[in-house]
């Protein structure tokens, strides 16, 4: 199974996690993160979200993050799915799923990958609200989240 998919289509959480741990009796813990489109942002109703990426670079960047996670944590397998194109409120955006023998490693690796992805993977979000469309601003808090892992990011700042 590919480790990384960037796709317009929705994903099925059960199917992805089943494939992640298929036949691997060494797995004791799976941690899955699903990011979803909120229906409000800055007090305005969000009617749709557009996601753009950099084909080729995006996939390569995420592959490199997974390799780094594998060096830092004891992992069995990793799967990342990120949607692009036009999404609606409540749609799924991203899945990061990690399997490990032990839960502590799985939790850490999954959060590490999300912090990394948020600040280093070339995706851009455009929110459509009742007051028009605008590109979402990067958050300093996301750079700070990555800094906890000893990695510097100046994405937002």
């Amino acid at each position, binding site marked *: 199974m590919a480790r990384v998919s960037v796709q317009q289509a929705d994903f099925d959480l059960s199917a992805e996690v089943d494939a992640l741990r298929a036949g691997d009796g060494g797995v004791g813990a799976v941690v899955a993160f699903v990011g979803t489109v909120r229906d409000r942002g800055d007090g305005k109703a969000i009617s749709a979200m557009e*996601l*753009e990426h*950099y084909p080729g*670079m995006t996939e390569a960047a995420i592959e490199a993050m997974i390799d780094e996670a594998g060096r830092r944590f004891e992992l069995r397998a990793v799967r990342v799915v*990120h949607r692009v194109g036009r999404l609606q409120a409540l749609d799924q955006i991203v899945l990061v799923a990690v399997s490990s023998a032990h839960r502590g490693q799985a939790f850490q690796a999954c959060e590490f990958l999300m912090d990394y*992805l948020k600040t280093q*993977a070339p995706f*851009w979000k455009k929110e459509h609200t009742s007051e028009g469309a605008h590109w979402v*601003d990067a958050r300093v808090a996301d750079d700070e989240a990555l800094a906890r892992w000893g990695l510097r990011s100046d994405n937002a700042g």
Partner: protein
Amino acid sequence: MKVQVRYFASLREGLGAAEAVDMPPGSTVGQLRDALLARSERHAELLARGRAVRCALAQTLCDEGQALAEGAEVAFFPPVTGG
């Protein structure tokens, strides 16, 4: 030497998805940005030094000191906001 420039998100909306640029051998990504700034008022506004613009060379995040080679792919884009 020819380099291929790509834009994403708000930069793509303002400048188009891609353009080709001829640069002197040995130029850096920062010198490419300078050359682009001179292309139009639109370029000058969207690539202005005061703005948060990130760049990638050969599909890897880079800084502006990186040297370009013939046929290089350079991308300029705003801070990323995925996930």
